[in-house]
């Protein structure tokens, strides 16, 4: 070491100081993130918004090659697949008949009841650009953002089932937190028993159901749909089917195809109307004649 003393004497301390400042700056950023998370997350969304779409040219060949390999593997199993598909098709034909009959019946009943299904539930479709890049975070980036009117919290579906919710919106991109993420909690209803539960992501493909009132009423194979409780999501979006996990917990086999998320629909969920006044019709406060107020009070109590 002695031979370098002269050359390192003046470089060393300055360098150490600069490295110290660098580390402090990074830790400072982390602390700011911890204290004021939304602001830094907005910065993160903006940064990703700028950087990631420009990675397109690099990602296209990678995903292309991966698809090529996947296709090649599926060519090898072509005949087996063909048989499977035939069998499935037969089943589907039977289902199609059933579905047609049910559709007619449903249309008739809806007409009789004069029901209007929610007409405001339109959607924007986006393409998945990247996934989260980390094995501990389950989220994807789609190429629609604030520019397209996307708002935090909107539900996202693939063609069939619920995929996740918007968590973080940039100008041209937005992040979809998948149902399998550890911080995802969705209120659901289990049909046909009507039990309410919370679908809690735990970084596995089949998230467990939590806060079930009566697990005996639920059978594997029951449909799970979003319940619309708490104004988180609109009601009746298909989530998946109940399945019994190997750990004897009730889990949900998600209807969305997580293996191939390519196009995602972001549903424009209208904001829920809040009821703030105590209900003027039930408790009229002016000009009573006779015993009416007592009745009104009793009604309110009862």
């Amino acid at each position, binding site marked *: 070491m002695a031979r370098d003393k002269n050359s390192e004497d003046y470089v060393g301390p300055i360098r150490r100081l600069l490295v110290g400042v*660098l580390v402090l700056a*990074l830790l400072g950023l982390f602390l700011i993130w911890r204290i004021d998370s939304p602001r830094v997350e907005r910065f*993160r969304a903006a940064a990703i918004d700028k950087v990631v779409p420009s990675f397109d040219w690099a990602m296209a060949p990678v995903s292309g090659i991966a698809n090529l390999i996947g296709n090649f593997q599926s060519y090898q199993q072509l005949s087996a697949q063909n048989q499977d598909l035939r069998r499935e098709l037969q089943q589907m034909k039977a289902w199609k008949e059933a579905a047609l009959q049910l559709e007619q019946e449903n249309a008739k009943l809806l007409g009789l009841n004069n029901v209007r299904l929610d007409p405001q539930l339109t959607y924007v479709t986006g393409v998945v650009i990247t996934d989260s890049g*980390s094995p501990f*975070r389950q989220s994807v980036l789609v190429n629609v953002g604030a520019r397209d009117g996307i708002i935090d919290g909107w539900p996202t579906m693939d063609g069939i089932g619920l995929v996740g919710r918007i968590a973080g919106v940039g100008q041209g991109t937005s992040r979809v937190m998948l149902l399998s993420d550890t911080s995802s909690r969705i209120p659901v209803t289990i049909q046909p028993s009507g039990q309410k539960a919370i679908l809690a992501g735990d970084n596995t493909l089949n998230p467990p159901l939590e806060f079930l009132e009566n697990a005996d009423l639920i059978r594997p194979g029951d449909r799970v749909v979003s319940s619309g409780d708490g104004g988180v999501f609109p009601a009746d979006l298909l989530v998946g089917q109940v399945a019994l996990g190997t750990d004897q917990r009730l889990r949900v086999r998600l209807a969305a195809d997580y293996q191939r998320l390519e196009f995602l629909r972001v549903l424009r969920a209208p904001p829920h109307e809040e009821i703030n006044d105590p209900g003027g019709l039930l408790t009229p406060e002016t000009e009573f004649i006779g015993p009416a107020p007592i009745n009104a009070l009793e009604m309110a109590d009862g």
Partner: protein
Amino acid sequence: MAKAPATRIWINRGVFIALAFVIIVLQLVPLDMRPPRWPPPDVLLALTLAWVARRPDYLPVYLIAAVFLTTDLLFQRPPGLWAALVVILTETVRTRARGIRNMPLALEWGTIAFGIVAITLANRIVLAILMTPQAPLGLTLIQMILTILIYPLVVFVAHYMFGVSRPALGEIDARGRRI
């Protein structure tokens, strides 16, 4: 040594940036959105450590900080913490680079493994103290072990494909100092 040392250093920095870019893109490509059963090793960390242990002059500290801060932002990690820990670790390795140069590979591997374990634990402890939601412990440990296991492979690739080997005796840097 056909090229001037300064040119070689810049070429090698370019190679590192390109490799980091490739690793980041490969991690981001949306191929399968199912949660993985086995988290993949943190190749970028192994790569950085191999570079720093072998040729610290190829990898200035600001480059490391920039690359890891970018991945913090892109991979939805708490921004700054992991980057700071990696900078601290690489600085520690950098000051010992002379010692590491004379070690057999097994000893070097052990030193690096100790460092990886230290920053992984530090990361978890800091996150726990600040009550930040964390990844499951099992997955983190598996990733840590895989990262340690992949280190010799990275060293091998760095040595034979990118020529990042321990400096020979008496080699000098751009300013004529011995490294």
